[in-house]
């Protein structure tokens, strides 16, 4: 079995059917849970810059992200599993991204889409307020490079994330690698609107109004 098929959700389910009598109960449960999680990744509607247009293109008619179970874009982080950070994050935006990440329910995954979120991109040298890589304040599961990445690259990133989820251990013992970001904190910044009530209230209301 090639590298590409390893841990793929459908392949794992196929293996499960073949080897069911030999597997332990928890192992079976793990596989089923992971299969469910990886096959219905709901991303959050969160476009920042140019990459957001490619993210929309992936969701639209030609590329159709729904084929991989990841097409149900949610407008609120509370219903989302996957945060696709699509675009340059600057000093003013960073606390919003961090807050959105904190609002998502577990288990949650982050895709850093585009060169800017991976490491500053074209703004790494002269961008005085660009955060060079979002992995400075949120844990990133998949990096998708490109400026902007092609839609196929995003689909590849989704499939990569699915394989990563299939390798996780939910009920069985053992370690899966999760980066520790508990020490990183982002304090809320000030904004242009000088209204104390708005500045103390959460900066990100998440209900869609349309």
């Amino acid at each position, binding site marked *: 079995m090639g590298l590409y098929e390893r841990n793929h959700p459908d392949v794992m389910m196929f293996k499960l059917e073949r080897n069911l009598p030999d597997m332990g109960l928890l192992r079976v449960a793990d596989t089923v849970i992971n299969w469910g999680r990886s096959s219905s990744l709901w991303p*959050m*509607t*969160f*476009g*920042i*810059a*140019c990459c*957001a*247009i*490619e993210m*929309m*293109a992936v969701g*639209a*008619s*030609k590329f159709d992200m729904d084929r991989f179970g990841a097409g149900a874009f949610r*407008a609120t*982080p509370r219903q989302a599993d996957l945060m696709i950070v699509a*675009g*340059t994050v*600057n000093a*003013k*935006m960073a606390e*919003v991204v961090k807050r*959105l990440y904190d609002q998502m329910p577990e288990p949650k995954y982050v895709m850093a889409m585009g060169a800017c979120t991976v490491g500053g991109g*074209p*703004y790494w*040298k*002269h*961008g*005085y*307020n*660009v955060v060079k890589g979002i992995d400075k304040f949120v844990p990133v599961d998949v990096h998708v490079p490109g*400026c*902007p990445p*092609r839609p196929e690259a995003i689909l590849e990133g989704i499939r990569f994330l699915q394989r990563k989820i299939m390798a996780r251990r939910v009920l069985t013992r053992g370690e899966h690698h999760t980066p520790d970001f508990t020490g990183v904190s982002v304090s809320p910044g000030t*904004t*242009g*609107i000088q*209204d104390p*009530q*708005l500045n103390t*209230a959460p*900066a*990100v*209301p*998440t209900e*869609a*109004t*349309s």
Partner: protein
Amino acid sequence: MAATVEARPPDKYVDVRTQELQINMGPQHPATHGVLRVAIWADGEIVTRAEPDIGYLHRCAEKIGESVTHIQYVPYTDRYDYLAAMNNNLGYCLAVEKLAELEIPERAEYVRVIVSELNRIASHLMAIGTYGLDLGAFTPFFYAFREREEILRILEWICGARLTYNFIRIGGVMRDCPEGWLEDITRFLDYFEPRLEEMNELLTHNHIFVNRTANIGVVSLEQAVKYGLTGPNLRGSGMRWDLRRDDPYSIYDRFEFDIPIGTGIKGTVGDCWDRYWVRILEMGESVRIIRQALDQIPDGEIMAKGVRHLAFKCKAGESYQAVENPRGELGYYLISEGGQISYRSRIRAPSFCHLSILEEILPGSMFGDAVAIIGSIDIVLGEVDR
């Protein structure tokens, strides 16, 4: 078809006065086209005050403009208005060429016009598709994207990128048209023109859409001029002003095309529907321009002689060059002291000016219409914050 909506009497809602409510919209919001944040003060359902808060995508454009060379800066211009990267390339290259006094070969000029107008259609398709999405119509989005993908395929064929092209270079264009490319554009235009009618059936005359956009967010001509509106937003308010005709750059004086303006077919002149309708008509005009350019395109060079790309130097001076972006007047004001790097490069982004009118037109409208108004002025946040 052809539904018209009567203007709402202004005193109809006076009695429902309640406690003032503060609502925060954005920066993460599905209908703000990026990371715009608007603080809205509402009295019941009626907006009393609105204050846009921008800067969530500030990417230091002007600092980079005075730190990298002219040639290196062209790819950065792609990323400011990322929906119309060709037009941004064109504006910057024209500004530098004006300072450097370069003569552009004929064929390059025609290729520039063709790709800019194709990109204008793609940008308007995006504006219309997402505008439908904002108002709850999901289907037109997919149809608009289907056509847009065709344009992206054509542009990708010639320059290899889907979104950030870096195709128009200082002194000409990156490469000559590949074999069969021009014929393919003709084929696409034959395919695309009937699709405009399809878009009208889907969205333009849809009763719900007309009800949500006609007489909403009316910008009078006086307001539009006062707030520096340009492009489709100014034309939607009834002003026949287009830089391609009124201050011709490149070779636009050789083509025949109309300048559509808003006439208040469904409601008042300058409402959301008019701005939308101007964009639909402009796509047809772009098709006309491309057809003429395809007929006239000569053979020849595609890059000006004597442009040394590794050590391109500009003459000293300062100049302002404006082009008609899909969103409005895109201007580059460059100060050069000679040498490879600009002393100052200032970008006049149309969306930045358009956004400042929100403070003026949002108060008095219904809260639910705020999304319709923000969508109708078609902003790109990369350009607002730069």
